[in-house]
């Protein structure tokens, strides 16, 4: 019963997203693209409501959390931005084999995760324990976060996944640990849907379906082998895939840039690394747009939701004296002392137990594809992020980061892997937008 209720609570999230989306200027999307977008908006707005209610001293109750979602619906009657009609695309042909393969991949990942073969120890050590305790406390329990052992669990860690699990626990009465593991296949499914929905706008449907199957297999394997079930990587990669799908295959309109910023806010609120990812995306896409068109609009649009989201969370942790990772150097001071072992250790973690097969796959896709239009920004983000990984491990002070790298580098490297995958699958010709209107391309 706990598991069923917990799952039900998770399935409510896109409904919350559709309520919050009433006031947002969303672009036209087909149903396959709409679901991941609504899940993203639902996760972010749920996080915002739960953080704000804690801040205002309102104890969480299911009704108390759901009520604020009525406001945008009611407000939508008074003022609603011009909504784009649903996108109608031609019926895709020849995609069945690739769709079956992608679905098979997701089922396989569901089995691997559900049978505890991909569990992250962090689910027990911090995501789950924080979520259960928050649900019982009916708010973000600041005293619990200040408990000395909690230092290992980073008291100021971004709240989205914790609060998603806490929401499930609040509805179900307890945390359903087994269902928490299934967030891996669920977010993988959403990532696949987001990729397919945007890719088919820009490349032939058959090609888009094949690339979706590769993405599902690539993320399914790497997430499983680096034991990410129950950890922050599945939602983080979902948000990253959503961001790149919008920016790589979208029409570059303001509405899509705004949507990309919403997805960036999701990345920022899931994991600390999400902030670095968001920074590189804003700089790469915004910077290139400035160089090409002397326009600051993409930069401003991409920062519009993501930067205030991060700012609000940092303000919350500062005001509650919870600073840890956002407070500078949690492990130690910056040093070049271990640079050699860092540069040797990271590639060792990158092999994913399969002689670097995931990287070889991405490299092959880069080599055999046609000329690509927008390959450069995701590649720049990937290179920047690799530098960020090295930079992080240089913050160990006198502590040799070898164990730290073994523990985390394979998970950190998933983001550049996704970046290079998008560089490899970027469309090869200018967009023939199938949209209802000809958007002004900002990016």
């Amino acid at each position, binding site marked *: 019963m706990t598991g069923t209720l917990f799952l039900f609570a998770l399935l409510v999230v896109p409904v919350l997203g559709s309520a919050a989306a009433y006031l947002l200027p969303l672009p036209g999307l087909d149903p396959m693209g709409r679901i991941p977008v609504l899940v993203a908006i639902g996760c972010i707005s749920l996080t915002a409501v739960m953080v704000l209610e804690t801040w205002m001293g309102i104890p969480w109750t299911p009704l108390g959390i759901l009520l604020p979602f009525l406001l945008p619906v009611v407000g939508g009657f008074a003022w609603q931005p011009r909504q784009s009609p649903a996108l109608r695309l031609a019926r895709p042909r020849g995609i069945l084999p690739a769709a079956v393969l992608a679905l098979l991949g997701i089922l396989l990942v569901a089995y691997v995760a559900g049978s505890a073969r991909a569990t992250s120890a962090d689910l027990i050590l911090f995501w789950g324990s924080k979520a259960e305790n928050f649900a019982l406390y009916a708010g973000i329990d600041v005293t619990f976060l200040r408990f000395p052992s909690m230092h290992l669990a980073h008291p100021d860690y971004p709240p989205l996944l914790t609060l998603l699990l806490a929401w499930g626990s609040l509805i179900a009465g307890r945390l359903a640990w087994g269902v928490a593991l299934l967030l891996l296949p669920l977010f993988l499914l959403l990532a696949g849907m987001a990729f397919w929905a945007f890719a088919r706008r820009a490349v032939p449907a058959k090609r888009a379906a094949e690339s979706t199957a590769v993405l599902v297999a690539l993320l399914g*394997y790497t997430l499983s082998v680096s034991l990410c079930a129950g950890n922050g990587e599945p939602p983080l990669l979902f948000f990253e895939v959503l961001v790149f799908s919008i920016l790589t295959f979208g029409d570059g309109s303001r509405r899509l840039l705004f949507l990309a910023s919403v997805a960036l806010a999701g990345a920022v609120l899931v994991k600390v690394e999400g902030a670095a990812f968001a920074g590189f995306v804003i700089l790469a896409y915004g910077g290139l747009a400035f160089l090409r068109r002397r326009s600051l609009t993409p930069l401003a649009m991409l920062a519009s939701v993501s930067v205030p989201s991060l700012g609000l969370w940092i303000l919350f942790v500062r005001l509650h004296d919870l600073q840890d990772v956002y407070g500078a150097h949690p492990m130690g001071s910056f040093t070049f002392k271990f640079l050699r072992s860092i540069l040797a250790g990271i590639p060792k973690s990158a092999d994913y137990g399969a002689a670097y097969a995931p990287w070889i796959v991405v490299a092959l896709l880069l080599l055999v594809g046609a000329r690509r239009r927008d390959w450069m920004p995701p590649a720049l983000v990937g290179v920047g992020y690799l530098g960020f990984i090295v930079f992080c491990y240089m913050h160990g002070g006198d502590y040799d980061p070898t164990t730290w790298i073994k523990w985390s580098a394979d998970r950190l490297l998933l983001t550049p892997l996704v970046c290079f995958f998008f560089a490899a699958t970027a469309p090869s010709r200018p967009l023939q937008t199938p949209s209802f209107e000809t958007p002004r391309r900002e990016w």
Partner: protein
Amino acid sequence: MRSLLMRRFSHEVLAPITSWGAALALLALLVFHAIQGGALKLERPSTVLTNKYWVQRGAVRHLLFLQDVEERVPRGAAIILVFSPATKPMDLKINVLQALSQFPDHSVIPAYDRLINPRTHPAGAYAAYFGGELHAPTYELIWRSGAGTLYRAKR
């Protein structure tokens, strides 16, 4: 013309073959990973960490012990997690975090066995000792398993 043909060959022949080969190879690796994690069965694992990977294996025994303790201690009671003085500080912190995840309805108090002081502990407290036995006259043994022991403060 030749370059156009090459590009078309790459786009229409090589790219789909690469995509299919890549997806199939990665899924085969995923199956291999699943087999490595233990026999393929359709039953629920005893804990979310029950598999054959060394990183988690160590925690499973502790988690099962905590689950057994949780069934025996009434909701709201304080549970003292007893540690031997030889426990490394990092292991202690990890064990406490694992206990916090399993005892959300209880107060969790970590303590070294030599330093157990019932006067500072809440009335009716329980003491759970993973992999050890407590020799404190103020506590009575109420349950024992191969993994550890559980005590209740004498009234």
